[in-house]
């Protein structure tokens, strides 16, 4: 069995980390009672979702 290229491994780990951060933010948004805090989560979620898809 050949290992995938190193950069695929690093990207895979990075993708897992990104997914975990998104999960944390979404959990906090759903628990929060502060609408302002919920609305501003967009500026965190959008770049992380883009990163998850590896769109810059």
């Amino acid at each position, binding site marked *: 069995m050949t290992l*995938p*290229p190193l*950069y*695929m491994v*690093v*990207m895979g780990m990075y993708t897992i980390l990104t997914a975990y951060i998104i999960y944390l933010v*979404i959990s906090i*948004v*759903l*628990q*929060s*009672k502060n*609408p302002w805090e*919920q*609305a501003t*989560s*967009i500026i965190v*979620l*959008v770049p992380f*979702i*883009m990163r998850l*898809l*590896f*769109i*810059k």
Partner: protein
Amino acid sequence: MSNAKKTGLMAIAGSLALSAVLTVNYMQMWHDDIIIPGPGVSEVKWLSDYYPDLKGTLGDTRVYIMEGEEPGGTFLILGGTHADEPSGNMTALIVVEHATVKKGRVIVMPNTSNTGYTNNYPQEAHPQYITIKQENGAERKFRYGSRTGNSAEHWPDPEVFIQYPHKQKYSGEECRNPNRAYPGRPNGTFAENVAYGIQMLHRAEHIDLQIDMHEGQPEYPFVNALSAQKRAADVGSMAVMEMQMADLNIGMETSPDSFRGLSNIEMGDMFPRLYAFTSETVNPLQGKIRGITDAKLTIEGKDAFYDEAAKLGYLFAPWPEIGSPLKLRVGRNIQEMQALATAFTDETGTEIVWGEDLPTYEDLMEHGVGYYLNRLPEGGVERPEIRALPGYWRLWSKTWTS
């Protein structure tokens, strides 16, 4: 369901919707630009025809062969090495769509770093596209990319990029810079793979003369200039004198041996028959003291901050009242290609002669860039399909399908 939960779900839905819109917008840059070859083009190839490993990647790019009526030397024109420097790309497109060759052969790559065209610099407020106006309201739209290739092809960047084979050290991001990747190698970075493809093209087509067209910021010392690999200095000097006689201010220098990885140095050192050059025009959109940053700035070339900087003597290049519009920069490039072909012919006796369709600097200044690009047919042309995914996605999809 509580109100707090509802607003939370709305925020998440809004994030997903905005991400989807941005993703689709970003993916539009993965389509190739529409190019309509003119009568001078005899064959359209791909870089992967010379180096098959590039097939199915966004590093693969179109190679236009223009056979002259009579035999002679072979001239390779590289546009779009840096995808945020549009004058080289536009010059190459005018050659492909409008020019003819009388003696010799011209090979043109308008998007040398095609992967550079698949992403841009949104945080620099760079536009994704520029639109070139033509007569009667027609227009052509082209991508405005980034200096380096798509990071999805090679990630993460190292702290230090060590150039092959000379081991010169550059900052990590330069590992994606096509003009630090020469002579290239098959098992290196993605940029080195593409450079290796160009090396293979050199071997197959026996290139005699090469120009790689770049742009720089107005406050950069090396602009409005031609840089020659040291063996090509005589030909470059003759070309520069011819341009100066036509009242085009241009400087000339020999590329230093200590600046490795550049197309002119590495290819010139590798191929003894080759005369290799790099040129630079002035693009205010790349400058650090620019004002409003949009497509208009690179096309019209006017900027109040640069007007003021010129008055204070802070710029290295002359800054005329009209600024540095695209037509002026393309005009300079075209005049330079003409001058290089003449100087090469005089020096070596091997002829490269352009047909009469190649416009001059004055023609460009009078009519503009759009005049020399072909009109899209009635009803338009379908954009080319996305033919490959950036590396990360491509490798994942390969893993899933194998």
